[in-house]
């Protein structure tokens, strides 16, 4: 898996399907957002789309 350098979304793609930014193989942590409307963590992390995210991403 790769993580988006901008929004941290996890994907197999070279570019992020959510925001179009570049992705990286260098990431850590896993945050799975299931209900972005109800999740306080999603609000803190500014995540609005359901899915898997990294916690930290580096180039």
């Amino acid at each position, binding site marked *: 898996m790769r993580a988006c350098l901008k929004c941290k979304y996890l994907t197999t793609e070279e570019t992020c399907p959510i925001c179009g930014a570049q992705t990286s193989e260098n990431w850590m*942590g*896993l945050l799975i957002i*299931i209900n972005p409307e109800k*999740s306080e*963590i999603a609000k*803190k992390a500014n995540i609005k789309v359901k899915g898997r995210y990294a*916690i930290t991403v580096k180039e």
Partner: protein
Amino acid sequence: MIFAVRTMVGQEKNIAELMYGRVEKENLDVYSILASEALKGYVLVEAESEGVVKELIKGMPRVKGLVKGTINIEEIEQLLTPKKIIENIEKG
């Protein structure tokens, strides 16, 4: 409400995925699941109630149990914030 589930060390991400699968399959009121390298032996689960988390982990392998009480969102914030300042200092 955010709860901490004790897991076997090194299995945090696998268990998070296992939980995600069960949430989708059983349509449980779980809002998010967090596995961080900074938090070895635990997976954090944000859910409607403690009962939902108990239901989620029932019979789940490599799970040791549910920690009593809830976790403040402020504590989670520290986990979510990349330690950029420290990294920059280390790089010199």
